[in-house]
């Protein structure tokens, strides 16, 4: 008999882990809260650093899960431990008995309206990184043709007052990628990135930065302090150009906020039922931060992806694969008699 494994979350981490576990011969039940699988990947247009279409990546992930039992629009209603296994009651009425559980609940995007000074939800030309991806995806153009567009890095990240002192890792590269895309669409527009540090740590990310510079994107080192509307419905943006120690102001037609990553609320609810511990940043804490990143302190419960902190997509996929290995080992050691 195949052992049941419950995967919580149908984003990149959940899909990749499910595909690998299926290949290892397990019976996978994957649950996803949304109507569609894919998580944030399904909402994105193109991926840094090379501009690969997100849909292409998602399609490849979906191709590999043909035998996985997926329940979309499904939540965990209750979950507890029975003997060595997990007993989960799903919102669709089905009960699952699983020998291992993978938490792949990912992240929520920081609610940008909380940073009121940026005017998200107040001025319609203040949007988020995710909104811009949606516009790209739907090939929706910005009208009238913008003369100037700005990107604000670290919105809801590196910000204790917003409840998140950590860096969200992906938004610098996202901002620079989006700045390049905007510049390609509107070559005559002035494009500004307001940053504190540029964290272009990955392979070819620095090339992306150089590409943005060469295309004329202006990088201003300083955090935007406030945004106001002008009489002609544009945005007045204030920051300090900290490299010259002078306040700087500029009028823009659109401002894109790089909203960071917060722990998934839905994942948190499941975590509470299982007494999973979180770190100060709200993300789940792994068994140890170096050698057992995929394990939790609860035997049989594993983690993959951004539920343990902000991660890039390739890192998430790596974690999904290594979680599959860890789960395989756990099942063999605990359930399969030699």
């Amino acid at each position, binding site marked *: 008999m195949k052992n049941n494994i419950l995967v919580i979350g149908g984003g990149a981490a959940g899909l990749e882990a499910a595909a690998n576990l299926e290949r290892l011969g397990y019976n996978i039940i994957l649950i996803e809260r949304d109507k569609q699988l894919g998580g944030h990947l399904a909402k994105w247009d193109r991926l840094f650093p090379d501009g690969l279409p997100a849909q292409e990546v998602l399609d490849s992930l979906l191709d590999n899960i043909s035998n996985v039992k997926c329940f979309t629009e499904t939540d965990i209603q209750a979950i507890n431990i029975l003997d060595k296994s997990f007993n989960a009651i799903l919102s669709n009425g089905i009960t699952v008995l699983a020998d291992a559980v993978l938490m792949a609940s990912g992240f929520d995007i920081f609610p940008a309206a909380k940073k009121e000074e940026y005017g998200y939800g107040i001025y319609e030309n203040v949007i988020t990184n995710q909104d811009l991806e949606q516009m790209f995806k739907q090939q929706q153009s910005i009208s009238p043709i913008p003369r100037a567009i700005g990107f604000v890095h670290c919105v809801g990240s590196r910000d204790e007052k917003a409840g998140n002192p950590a860096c969200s890792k992906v938004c610098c590269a996202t901002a620079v990628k989006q700045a390049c895309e905007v510049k390609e669409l509107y070559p005559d527009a*002035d494009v*500004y990135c307001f940053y504190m540090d540029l964290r272009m740590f990955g392979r070819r990310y620095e090339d992306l*930065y*150089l590409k943005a*510079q*060469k295309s*004329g994107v*202006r990088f201003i*080192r300083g955090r935007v302090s406030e945004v106001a509307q002008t009489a002609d419905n544009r945005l007045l943006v204030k920051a300090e*150009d900290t*490299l*010259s120690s*002078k*306040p*700087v*102001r*500029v*009028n823009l037609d659109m401002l894109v906020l790089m909203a960071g990553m917060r722990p998934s609320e839905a994942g948190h609810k499941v975590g509470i039922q299982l007494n999973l511990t979180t770190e100060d940043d709200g993300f789940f804490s792994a068994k140890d931060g170096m050698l057992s990143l995929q394990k939790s302190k609860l035997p049989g419960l594993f983690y993959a992806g951004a539920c343990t902190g902000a991660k890039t997509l390739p890192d998430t996929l790596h974690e999904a694969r290594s979680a599959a290995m860890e789960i395989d080992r756990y099942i063999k050691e605990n359930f399969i008699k030699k």
Partner: protein
Amino acid sequence: MIDFGFGISPSSGINLNNSDKDTFSKLAKMEPNVLKCMACGSCTATCTAGDFKTTSLRTAILNLQNGLKDEALEILSGCMLCGKCTMVCPRGINTRHLILSINKIYGK
């Protein structure tokens, strides 16, 4: 004019709405590498003239991007064109040539 006993000093802030972007585009056309500066400060740190008079290519580039032409020329005025900064620029900018071009385009 009535003397009210106080004056109005010009804003020390940078207003990018009326900054001169056209001349900077002209410079960028002639010296595309100017766009590659990442404000590391190596050029300023190594500048021989800088020991005697504040001289900074990094600041000059920034000033030009901010439309502050006079400040840019002033902070390059001590440059003796020794070219030492060219050796240290990690972006491979021919900084000496860039300074000549800045003076050509913006100079009086």
